[in-house]
């Protein structure tokens, strides 16, 4: 997994995260804050993996960090749908 691609991905996730944060600022919609957080975590995970130096065991730990990002997205979707039922 080339460092270059890792670097691009990390930067990409960060940039996307910042956009989502801006959308949250503009709309005050919690969903955007949570997507922003998720993408920041994906950036973190990608950076973490890049610095691993081929230690395969710790890789699994970092994949749980990725899971965290997706769990946040799931929570965001649930949160968006819960407000409806009254």
């Amino acid at each position, binding site marked *: 997994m080339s460092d270059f691609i890792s670097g691009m991905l990390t930067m990409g996730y960060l940039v996307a995260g910042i956009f989502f944060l801006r959308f949250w600022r503009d709309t005050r919609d919690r969903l955007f804050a949570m997507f922003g957080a998720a993408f920041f975590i994906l950036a973190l995970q990608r950076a973490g993996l890049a610095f691993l130096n081929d230690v395969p065991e710790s890789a699994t730990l970092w994949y749980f960090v990725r899971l965290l990002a997706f769990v946040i997205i799931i929570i965001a979707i649930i949160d968006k749908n819960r407000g409806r039922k*009254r």
Partner: protein
Amino acid sequence: MNQPAEEPIPEHVRRFIVDHIQSVESLEVLLLCFAGSSGEHSPAEVSRVLYTSLESATTRLEELHRDKLLVTSGADPMKYRFNSASPDTAVVADLEKIYKQRRVSVISFIYSKPTDPLRAFSDAFRLRKDEP
């Protein structure tokens, strides 16, 4: 009905509609609260007066509340009142006047405006699409 035919809706009113009004229903709810300035309205009342479902009325009131156009009393049942401290009070007054005079133009405008992409993004994650 002798109005200058194609006089466009004033810019500040248009901007307000684009930013805050998604549907004719939202507009009617807002104007209902605005007109009865001092009175408080519960979702049940709003749904009764506007002949709309309780669920829609509640959603609209919540949206307008979130946009800081309405304030709540916090009582149970929740009642909503127009936020007279809102910086948009003058615009809403103009909107009310224009809506009375040119209902059709306002309605056409509401439904012709390009969808706000952020709202579309957020709405994409609503699993049940029965809200208008």
